[in-house]
């Protein structure tokens, strides 16, 4: 029984890493890896008993077969053109601050960088002596970092804290997926975000069950 649990935890860590990876700009090292990822996800989800249909990700080898095209898809999805992209950043989907003393007029609005959640992420990185790449200074709550942080918590901290973290920081990903569909971003990234959203639903459900 213990072995199964350990195995499951390893799968979870690996899934978080893999999905985080999928949200980083693809390089040459990303060529020809998708079949391996698809097979892994299927096995991992089965092991975890997460009913995420293979149809959601089985076309990744096709969609990501040409890395230079995928690089272009990445830009179209997350960088330019501005009017068609989505930003997988928690701050954009959360109220800017919950500090009632803040008097700027957009304090309770959504859609701005460096919300409380970004500041909290910064504090967590400091607490765990972690550093992030400079280009993420304006978005320490980018989804790829938050997924990686989940993996870090599972590997080095505790399941309990990881459960607290996903509950507090990752409830917005379904909204991101809706935006990805609305903006019609390239299919590979639509599917990646969908799989992340589905996976996180199971993760949250699973942690709630544990708490109960």
């Amino acid at each position: 029984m213990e072995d199964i649990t350990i195995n499951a935890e390893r799968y979870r860590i690996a899934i978080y890493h893999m999905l985080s990876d999928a949200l980083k700009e693809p390089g040459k090292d990303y060529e020809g890896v998708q079949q391996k990822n698809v097979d892994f996800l299927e096995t991992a989800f089965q092991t975890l008993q997460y009913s995420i249909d293979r149809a959601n990700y089985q076309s990744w080898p096709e969609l990501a077969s040409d890395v230079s095209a995928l690089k272009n898809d990445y830009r179209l999805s997350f960088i330019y053109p501005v009017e068609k992209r989505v930003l997988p950043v928690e701050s954009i989907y959360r109220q800017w601050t919950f500090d009632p003393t803040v008097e700027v007029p957009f304090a309770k609005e959504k859609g701005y960088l460096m919300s409380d959640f970004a500041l909290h992420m910064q504090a967590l990185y400091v607490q765990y002596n972690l550093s992030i790449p400079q280009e993420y200074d304006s978005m320490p709550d980018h989804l790829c970092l938050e997924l990686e942080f989940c993996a870090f918590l599972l590997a080095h901290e505790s399941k309990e804290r990881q459960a607290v973290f996903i509950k507090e920081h990752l409830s917005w990903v379904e909204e991101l997926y809706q935006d990805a569909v609305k903006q019609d971003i390239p299919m590979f990234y639509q599917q990646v975000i969908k799989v992340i959203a589905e996976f996180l639903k199971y993760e949250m459900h699973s942690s709630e069950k544990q708490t109960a």
Partner: protein
Amino acid sequence: MAAKPFSRRTFLKAAGVTLAAATGDIFAFNDWLAKAKAAEVSKIPSICGTCSAWCGMWIYVKNGRIWKATGQKQHPASKGKLCARGHAGIMWAYNKDRITHPMKRMGDNWFEPISWDDAYSEIAAKLQKVLTDYGPQTVFYSQNAKPTSRYYMQRFMHAIGAPTIHSHHSICSTARDVANKWTTGAMATADMANAKCILFLGRSYADGISPSATANLADARERGTKVIIVDPRYSSSCILGDQWVPIRPGTDLALLLAMAHVLLEENLYDPDFIEQYTVGFDEFKKTMLSYTPEWAAGITDIPAETIRTIARDLGKNRPASCIEQGYKAPNGANYVNGTQTFRMMICINALLGNYGKNGGMKFPLNPKLGELDPKQYPVPPKPKVPRCDGVGIKGEYPLCQTSQGIPHLMPKKAMEGKAKAGFIYSFNPARNSPDPKLMVDGYKKLELLVVCDIQWSETAMAASYVLPECSFVEREDLPTGIAGGKPAVTMRCQAIDRIHSQTKPFEEIVTGLAGKMGLQKYFDFSREEVATAMLKPLKLTTEDLRQKGTIVLDGKAKELSFATESGKVELYCKAFADNGYDAVPVWQPPLANAGKNSFVLIHGKQGIMSHTATANIPGLLQIAKNYNLERIWINPAKAKRLGIKDGELVEVSSPYTSKQVRVKVTERVHPDAAFLPAGYGNLSPWLKTGYGFGINPNDFCPHRVEAISGHAMMMEVVVTIRKVGE
């Protein structure tokens, strides 16, 4: 684990992970929030960058983020208050659609990020090629001038031998500024605190807000000052006035000529002032004789008796009465008769003998700032080649100011092959000048266009390279003097850390580029050294300004003098005569005249919206949406004739375009005018917030250059309006 995924690099790097450190008490969000709420608040002085009023502001910072903003009490523009634009504009720092990296054009609406070093190298190589192949007279720099950009880019332009430096005024107030230069030598401002009667022509403090000006107007009214507002529309300022006098668009000059006629005919002018301080009175008086109020009534649609009353109100209260100095309104860049309209405003103020008098027009005092020692820090020589916009050149625009130039002319010069490379800073002429297509097409003819901005303006979208500046809350700028009854000095200080690591303050950008051009010797100093040198004559330090924000200085009014060629107010202007312009203003009709079923398209700011830049601020745009502020105003009489009802969708057409917008049918606008707010109609799809909302008056107007001061004549267009099916 049976299968493993492909795994690449991790972004989270452990710097000596110790899980002991992980047992702190901020892991849960609410625990962090409790600590964050209790954090200390610091207070940093800044200058609002949302519009060009540049109000002094205090930015309060908590946990490294903006916590609130207030107006600096000691700053003459804010006097303790900020407007909605100031409160909303500070969010630019956190806007998700900012320009975050240096970008290189790769195709239509397609840019790719490049490194700063590559950007500098490529721009320097292309600029060098333009200088070698075509000469420095083909290079221009257009800016919405700010202290840091003005200082650094002037050095840069002079270092490459290029004289063509522009401010934005040819689409703003250049007619006013040229008229003042050649009539009184400098611009005087109305002493509202002491005026018994004041006439505003078009200018609306409550729409083009600086908080102190609006408050001063309200105070004046409360004190009993008679405030007369002449404007084709009942602006937001009219509620603070005694009398709204609707006028036919573009005819203010006729009103002024007739007012002068009345003042002269009824001896309501100041003969002593005229004798001592003016030249050309006889020619002036002779010219005014034919401009009777009855004549002007037919042109302006203002009854002759009203014209007489306005003139008498001013004349009888002289010298504590004046015509407010104006800005873009009534005619800074609007109609063909703009420069002479302002000359007449000044001439009437001279007839009232109000210069230097309480309640009249006063020349503001400027603080004298210092500069770097040129022996220690070499100054590039002034360029010897002519400007490419023709400013200061006989036969072209000899009287236009070299400090302002004609930026909106550059795309045409590019089409003619006379401009080859340009730099544009914090300025959006591609959207805010008439005929945006011509502007963009012209800019794209350049071999190099470098735009520095914080957001994807229409001009940035036309650039070959876009260099991202950090927003105004993320940088410190050079000190700046503030002219006024008492001079002051202020400085924008950095309130928060840069959010995007690849953005830079402007001085770093210019210095970096200068280094690649081999011009480092002209930039071998820090901004702090320049700031220190500027403040030295005032016996102040940068630390003083970092503490206090704005410091009001002692200043005594100088003896009245006029910095013109004659040393007097030039009612007759010899320089105008020498260059073939009317030496004394005469009636010149506007080019655009409304017909029975057509309108002259006028425009203006709104209290919450300055330009298309502010339309991209979500909070402000939401107000505009909630209150239907994008609508075009027309008068009910004409609306009825055209079968148009309030709120209906209409098509507005000029010979240049047709666009649809909803209509506001209101008595608040003259029947010959259709008023369209100037701040909407973003064309850049990357200005995601503002894009697609409203239409812009510049789309309807042709590209033109007025003969004397070179302005854009932005209201010289007739439109038709028809109801469209929905």
